[in-house]
């Protein structure tokens, strides 16, 4: 589904992390671990195609869904409108925004403008958008951030269903929050070796 070999990215002429090799197939759940600023987000953005790698090859044969720190919610639109927009723009035509909102536990906030939602609710909104997306590959940047206890169980459920149904996911977490699903593989992001290329 996704194959990355010797992937690196240079910021200010210094590689952000050591070259990364990663193969993601159907049913895989990869968890990127590493200290803050080790480049987890940068690597995810590379995999999502938002950034072009300085060196290395990246081949992705399927569509990807991206949930970053910035959740792409329009503050003036309410939750339902945001989800309908997401569905019309790049979602599955048969997906129903109402059902996705209900699954993400946002039934009571449907007509609330996104600007007034709490951080946890906004993250649930982003997760609801994931449900509408046809992309088999999920790229999640610290999905557990801002989620309360049943938010975490909700996310674990979504991940289990998605991976179980043959999808794949690459996510990053900081700290000890790991998905409560067995069979996930970890990839530690190592800082770039000191010294230089030439």
């Amino acid at each position, binding site marked *: 589904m996704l194959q990355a070999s010797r992937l690196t990215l240079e*910021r*200010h*002429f210094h590689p952000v992390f050591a070259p990364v090799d990663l193969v993601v197939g159907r049913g895989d759940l990869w968890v990127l671990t590493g200290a803050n600023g080790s480049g987890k987000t940068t690597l995810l953005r590379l995999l999502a195609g938002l950034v*072009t790698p300085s060196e290395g090859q990246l081949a992705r044969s399927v569509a990807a869904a991206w949930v970053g720190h910035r959740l792409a919610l329009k503050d003036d639109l309410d939750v339902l409108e945001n989800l309908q927009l997401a569905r019309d723009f790049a979602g599955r035509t048969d997906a129903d925004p109402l059902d996705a909102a209900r699954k993400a536990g946002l039934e009571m906030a449907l007509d609330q403008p996104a600007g007034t939602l709490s951080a946890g609710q906004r993250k649930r909104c982003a997760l609801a958008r994931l449900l509408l997306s046809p992309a088999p590959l999920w790229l999640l940047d610290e999905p557990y951030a801002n989620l309360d206890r049943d938010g975490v169980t909700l996310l674990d459920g979504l991940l289990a269903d998605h991976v179980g149904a043959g999808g794949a996911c690459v996510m990053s977490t900081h700290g000890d929050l790991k998905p409560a699903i067995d069979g996930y593989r970890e990839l530690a992001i190592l800082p770039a070796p000191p010294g*230089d*290329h*030439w």
Partner: protein
Amino acid sequence: MSRLKRLFHQFGSPPWFYRFSGKLVPWLWVAFALLAAWGLYRGLVVAPADYQQGESVRIMYIHVPSAWMSWMVYAVMAGFGICALVWRVRVAEILMISSAPVGAAFTLVTLVSGSLWGRPTWGTYWVWDARLTSELVLLFLYLGVIGLYNAFDEPRKAARAASLLAIVGLVNLPIIHYSVNWWNTLHQPASIGLDGSSIHPSMLWPLLIMAAATKFYYGACLLTRARNRLLEQDRGKRWAREALAEGGR
């Protein structure tokens, strides 16, 4: 990597470029000095005064070559920009952004010498003449490219943004040039030609010599600036440390 890109990569490799341009720069300065001296001698001393404008026509020998260069440097800069944007060749990015100040200098000299030439010819320092006006717009284009480059902190991203702007500017250059010319003929009868085509050979020669001199000047300035920027950016790398340590040119 495609063969072309590997070729570019090989040519574009910073240490190779640094050494190659290091050897080239002195020769460019020598060529510039010789041509400029010869051109100025022919222009200021040998060439006759113009029967209409008198001595003030001698300003042409700095004004016209600078004007030609100001347009040429923009086109060359945009060409580097295309290389930088399409093939992500780092040396092309550096050459692109190093050309901008030199181009702006040419445009500035063209504007100042044009207005100083205008004073005795038309009686005022600034006339909204077609060529001077499009030079002024060209100066804004240069300042836009430099301004956009400095607005980003990550150098590679800044260079690509400035390259894109240079290309958009290049596409608009002819449109701006002809619309200003059309606007000028609309509002003002054609003023006497600043660089008339049927020009006497004794005046044409210094013009061509100076034109060649300004090209060598551009090459020398460009490579010097590019080598500086390259060295500063790559100071962490071994080849740059060796170049810096030995203190050689």
